[in-house]
């Protein structure tokens, strides 16, 4: 039995890689590729008549495999299926770090899942509140209700858009410039930031289109996403590269944090770094940059 530490609500989540929970060869060591989170899938990847088998596999994988620092999240079946309650029981009993709510459309959906999670936590003697939640928005209604979803629970750490279903609803298809989902991505990001949670982009499915993938990841970073869902380990590296801060940003961030610690100890609230006015509002951003830099192996200093 591998005891997993209490999940952190806010941690680095640049890459979340989907894995079919029913495939023993895949789930046994998905963490070796260095993604931040793995997403064991009970939903689309698992055939309708293997949902039961997938849960048994998932339970033993969660209990047996040492995933180390990699976060383990499970995508459960939709609330309109007969599977989701048992999915939640197995996730909680197995000690998954978090649950991804598929096809989430309202705060009510989050509450429904949260209630079942809490019951399961009590049933299996798991600390109440341990299991985190995130929501996948896959429909126009989900996007329109993004803020109420994002702020529906203290367990919510993030929200993600699911491109395949969403594009179908919108009667569009993948566009290279991202115009098909521009508004939805924007709205979801605004909602997530307003609620103070993280925000993740959808998967990029054409594994042979390296240029298209890179363009999309760059756009994700520019828009302010925290990370991206992935379908193949070979996508991990590029996302980590693009989401890494530049050396200049790291140096600047360190200066800001250092100056802030010194100045605030001396009781000063506003000061300048390299001629630029800095106050407390800059600190969380600078600290985030240093933390990210540390995760990327770029920073070993004292402030991250």
């Amino acid at each position, binding site marked *: 039995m591998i005891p997993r530490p209490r999940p952190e609500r806010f941690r680095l989540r640049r890459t979340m890689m989907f894995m079919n929970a029913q495939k023993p*060869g895949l789930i*046994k*060591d998905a963490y*070796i*590729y260095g993604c931040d989170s793995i997403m064991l899938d009970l939903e689309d990847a698992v055939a309708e008549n293997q949902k039961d088998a997938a849960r048994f596999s998932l339970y033993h994988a969660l209990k047996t495999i*040492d995933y180390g620092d990699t976060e383990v999240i499970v995508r459960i079946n939709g609330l309109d299926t007969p599977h989701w309650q048992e999915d939640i029981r197995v996730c909680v009993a197995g000690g998954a770090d978090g649950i991804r709510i598929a096809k989430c459309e309202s705060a009510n959906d989050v509450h429904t899942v949260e209630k079942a999670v809490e019951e399961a936590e009590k049933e299996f003697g798991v600390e109440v509140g341990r299991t985190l939640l995130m929501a996948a928005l896959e429909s126009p209604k989900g996007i329109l209700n993004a803020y109420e979803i994002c702020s529906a629970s203290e367990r919510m750490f993030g929200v993600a858009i699911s491109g395949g279903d969403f594009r179908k609803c919108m009667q569009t298809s993948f566009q290279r410039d991202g115009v098909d989902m521009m508004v939805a991505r924007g709205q979801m990001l605004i909602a997530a930031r307003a609620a103070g949670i993280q925000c993740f982009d959808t998967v990029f499915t054409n594994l042979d289109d390296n240029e298209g993938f890179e363009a999309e990841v760059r756009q994700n970073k520019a828009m302010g996403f925290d990370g991206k869902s992935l379908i*193949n*380990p*070979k996508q991990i590296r590029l996302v980590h590269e693009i989401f890494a801060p530049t050396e200049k940003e790291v140096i600047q961030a360190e200066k800001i944090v250092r100056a802030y610690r010194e100045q605030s100890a001396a009781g000063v609230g506003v000061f300048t770094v390299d001629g630029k006015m800095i106050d407390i509002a800059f600190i969380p951003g600078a600290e985030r940059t240093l933390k990210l830099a540390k995760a990327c192996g770029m920073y070993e200093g004292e402030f991250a």
Partner: protein
Amino acid sequence: MRNAVGRDIPDSLLVNGREVYQGKNYMDGKYIQKASPRTKRYETPRESKIVDSIAQALKDCGAKSGMTFSFHHHLRNGDYVVNMVMQTAIEDLGLEDLTIAASSLGEAHDPIAEYIEQGKVVGIQTSGIRGRMGEVVSNGKLKTPAIIRSHGGRPRAIEAGEVHIDIAFIAAPTSDCVGNCRGIGGKSNCGSMGYAMTDAKYADHVVVITDCLVDFPNMPASVEAIDVDAVVVVDSIGNPKKIASAAARISQNPRDLMMAENVAKVIASTPYFKEGFSFQTGVGGPSLAANLFLEKYMDERGIKMGWAIGGICGPMVELLKKGKVGKVIDVQDFDLDAVNSINQTPNHFEMSASQYANPANKGAFVNKLDFVVLAALEIDTGFNVNVLTGSDGVLRGAPGGHPDTAAGSKVCIIVTPLTRGRMATVCEHVVTVTTPGDCVDVLVTDYGIAVNPLRPDLIECLDKVGIPHVSIESLKEKAYSLVGRPDDLEWEDKVVAILEARDGTILDVIRKIKPYQA
């Protein structure tokens, strides 16, 4: 008697001057008496050496029971010739007590298993043994222990007369009427014929079997007419689809790519990675993919590879055509890109197995290798590698050039996933030692890199550029923590195969396996 890799070799095998393995380069400086064949003179000019059938050729060469027939394995899994010859010898001519001395044997030769069970084939000398034949030999059905040699060890043994070839059968993609053979220009092309060359020089009789007769003279010849007694034309010598794959594709498997990238990183961290370096890689997923990443580092540093050897396939030919490698010297071809390039692309040359890897000649190509990247079925905490027996104890592989390139090269890198299914690749003791640990320098797995403590210089190289590495013991523990510690295999006393080190000493023996009964 225990040998230098800790294997117990039965004293009963240590006869006729045979010794146990004593360590790397033990035979250095010793003299050998080369064997010479007893060959027939053909003074009267002959217009043609073509005979009607394999049976006729066998009769003409005085084939009889108890003889040793040799074959090369350039037709790989597409080969028809071994089966054709053995069927004719055993079923049509009624010969018995035959020994097959092949450069390798594979699943194409499953029918020979039957002759082993019937006791008609009593000896096997080969590098590779797989499929049904591997099973029947592992089950103790062969009358005498099989002798397994590396690609360099085989020409050494032939030259030293330890294998005396009565008749060498040369499967030839093209031949002229007097037996000048080439590996190209026909319908079952294999490219290089490097493994056939020593056989042709040292066999008492040589029979060429071809499915494409071409005009005399078929030049430049890989096997020369001056060594050939007879030529037989058959409908087909092999299945071209299984001789050479269309093109060896570089793996897209993310695990392979991750390991391949680390291999290239390790190579690029050493002082041997400089203008004109030399390189060999296997054709397995991660080994071949290493080419791709190595090219990136070569471009970055602005250096070129001086030469590459080995079994060759498309990606290396491509580097040659791009001018990123100076010369390719080729003992065997694995895909059509390589087959179509040898002796055609400038600076793509053919060589014999002896030139490639023989430890007893005056300096084979492997001795000048900077880097070799190789796979493994198992590797133990002493860095000993097994590429011959499965972890279930059954013969299913081939030392090939593994021990030769490992011993000759400056840096030998083994690349393998930590586990395959439930098999721990990194383990406490390999089932069979095919490549001694003192020839193996770096292990790259999907769970981390380990450097042989015998190479502190390489450890320093890795540390200098910040490539993380761990002890091989910790990798073994990780493997066992994933798959569970395997039970020890149970063996009977009977030795079913002798594994010769490349220098001719005994490196290991394979005994008959006692299967677990559930």
